[in-house]
């Protein structure tokens, strides 16, 4: 369990990090290292150089800007879990974070690292896709961004280019008064990789009619996916229409098969958890006062 020898550099700025990265195909970025270090230990990854971006000030911090919460890439998962802005404005992210790894890995693991790693069963990418987050990237020439849906292209595969670095994730904030989230996952043990995860967010009006809804699945296909349940908008999300909507949306989804779970199992559980997540989101939204502070 000893990694191959590598050079270690800690650039002073994000521009310098991107410059180093773009000029060297054998270089890898490291931040929290909670996935990369095991890969190095098992020699599944053998970079010649590690560029440590964890302490770059440009990548730190959680900020609000018009209609969104921008989470810096090196925000620790544990820090995001406790953050009052995330709890209030991106409740879905706050809801899933206790399911990301264990407390010691969340103390080192970063939000941006989970995004860049793109594990199909990871919770943070699932939230990014479900809410339609924007992945903000830094390059040596400046910055760019792309929707989460375009960013994830397969298991541990993203459309990030050579020399690019995840800078921040821009999670949209729903402005409605009554918002509720739901989340369920099935794994062999708590904190293990999810075979299936489902998360939902619902906004209700004063009468309990659905104003907006988002439902996403993780662990089922080769990347997280958002399901189209938009025809639930305007309904009161009664059980029968929720299960019809989820069954229709999951009827022809692609699913992975591996030694833990077959594709048929994943598809079936996806439907069940999707219904439960929507139900939980609806109940949580309904528990909020119809008027007054969110």
């Amino acid at each position, binding site marked *: 369990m000893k990694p191959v020898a590598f050079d270690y550099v800690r650039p002073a700025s994000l521009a310098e990090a991107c410059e180093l990265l773009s000029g060297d195909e054998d270089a890898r970025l490291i931040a929290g290292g*909670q996935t990369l*270090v*095991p890969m190095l230990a098992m020699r599944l990854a053998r970079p010649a150089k590690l560029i440590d971006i*964890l302490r770059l000030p440009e990548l730190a911090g959680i900020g609000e800007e018009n209609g969104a919460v921008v989470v810096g890439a090196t925000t620790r998962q544990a820090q995001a879990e406790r953050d009052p802005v995330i709890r209030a404005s991106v409740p879905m992210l706050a809801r899933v974070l206790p399911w990301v790894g264990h407390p*010691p890995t969340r103390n080192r693991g970063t939000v941006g690292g989970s995004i860049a790693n793109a594990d199909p069963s990871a919770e943070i990418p699932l939230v990014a896709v479900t809410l339609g987050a924007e992945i903000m990237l830094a390059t040596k020439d400046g910055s760019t961004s792309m929707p989460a849906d375009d960013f994830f292209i397969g298991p541990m595969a993203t459309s990030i280019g050579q020399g690019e670095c995840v800078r921040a994730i821009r999670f949209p904030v729903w402005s409605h008064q009554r918002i509720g989230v739901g989340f369920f996952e099935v794994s062999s043990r708590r904190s293990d990789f999810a075979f299936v995860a489902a998360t939902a967010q619902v906004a209700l009006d004063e009468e309990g009619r659905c104003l907006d809804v988002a439902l996403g699945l993780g662990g089922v296909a080769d990347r997280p996916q958002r399901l189209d349940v938009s025809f639930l908008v305007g309904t009161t999300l009664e059980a029968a229409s929720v299960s019809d909507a989820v069954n229709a949306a999951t009827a022809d989804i692609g699913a992975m098969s591996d030694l833990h779970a077959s594709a048929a199992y994943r598809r079936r559980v996806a439907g069940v958890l999707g219904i439960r997540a929507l139900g939980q989101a609806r109940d949580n939204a309904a528990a909020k006062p119809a008027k007054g502070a969110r």
Partner: protein
Amino acid sequence: MRVNLRINGVSRSADIEPRKTLLDALRENFLLNGTHAGCEHGVCGACTVLVDGEPVRSCLMFAVQADDYEITTIEGLAPAPGELSVIQDAFCETHGLQCGYCTPGMILSAHALLQRTVTPTREDIVEAIAGNICRCTGYGQIIEAVEFAAARLRIANTPHPAVQADPSIVGPK
């Protein structure tokens, strides 16, 4: 590479290869063998240390990444040589260890919990040690040890660490 670390309140310095984990550096360069090497790829939790007071796996961190942090190993918990911390003593009293391999990691995880909580629930304790695998004692007695330590800290004649850190916590619930 020259690496300067703060370990158990003492500044230490050594020449360490970048690929050396904090775990191996603690054991080989600084002879702090209480931090145990288990799976060495982030699964078992035997190598848990505290980094700025929070539990972290020292096998998932390179020593060259660890400068400027306050690192606490199991050797840093006892108040004086030959003595035990309240949590270490509670593990002995309740038979919270058998082979002892996972124990330093368990105790450091429990220590971090009891630094911020006066009256942890059983669920809080289970969550705190969720990243630490025990293969012989059984978790029942380990949970009991942490509950016992929490109870002793509540009635100790010294200010509770969690209350010192945040006076708005007033326990028991």
